[in-house]
């Protein structure tokens, strides 16, 4: 099994989520590589609640999440994201 890295998470989400606009992945572990947070922006989340959105991400990253201790995930549509970053 490969070690979980920010790059790996980004790559998998960029390939796995349809209509992906951006993926942000942060190593929040202070070095041990056991804790990550991701933000995924895609219009594919339109009309889906948070649970359904997160399940899409969890499915793509199931092998990685199983290896690490902590995982946070936030999913936005492009419109929702633009409100946050402005």
């Amino acid at each position: 099994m490969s070690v979980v890295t920010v790059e790996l998470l980004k790559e998998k989400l960029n390939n796995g989520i349809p209509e992906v606009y951006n993926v942000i992945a942060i190593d929040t572990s202070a070095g041990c590589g056991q804790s990550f947070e991701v933000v995924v922006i895609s219009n594919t989340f339109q009309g889906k609640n948070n649970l359904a959105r997160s399940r899409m991400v969890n499915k793509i990253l199931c092998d990685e999440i199983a290896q690490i201790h902590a995982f946070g995930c936030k999913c936005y549509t492009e419109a929702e994201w633009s409100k946050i970053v402005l």
Partner: protein
Amino acid sequence: MTSNILEITDEEQFIEVTTNCRDNKIISLYFYSNEAKACQSMSTVYCALGEDPRFGNYLFLSIDANKLTSIAKNFEIESVPFFVFVKNDEMIYELSTTSPKEFVDFLPKLELELKVVMESMPERENYDELIDESDEETEEELNERLKMLTNAAPVMVFLKGTPSDPKCGFSRQIIGILRENNLRFGYFDILKDKSVRDGLKAFSDWPTFPQLYINGEFQGGLDIIKENVEKDPGYFIKSTK
């Protein structure tokens, strides 16, 4: 040692027995009639339960509904066999069944439910009994147990550690949110039970803990609950209805 099974002979005795019953016991009232055919096999099974070590937390009383009509009337008994469960002077459950197996199967479920719901009581008391350490649990039995656990309280949280001693920052945060919202909740420490820990991931289709259930329905992990509350401060009020 006193027996856990008793035939009620008059109303006075009934009151005495039920009021002197030790606090943490569940009293099972079995209303029967010698004329009712369905009561025959039930009575045979019921009488044996007093000796059964699995049901030490129960006090089993039998009440002839035809003879002790005033008690039967008090409990509004309309048919036999009929069961009423009482704890701390409160009626907690009624069960109408002609199947001895259904009745016997129901006993551990009720006991489990009562334990989990008592979340705001001192932690850890009787707590380890919730944990199934037998290795023989089949997948079906595990799923049945998970179904029971996720429904054990209207608001049910599965966490690492206990509310007063969470073993992980995320679990600590979700307890904080539940308390801020003055929610009464049941909890289960998944670190104490590996089969629940692994099984619930598949059951909820969710890879991490904590996990929150409301009315038996999976709500999400910490991120989702946080966002739901931020988006809609009335989230808990609506979802716990």
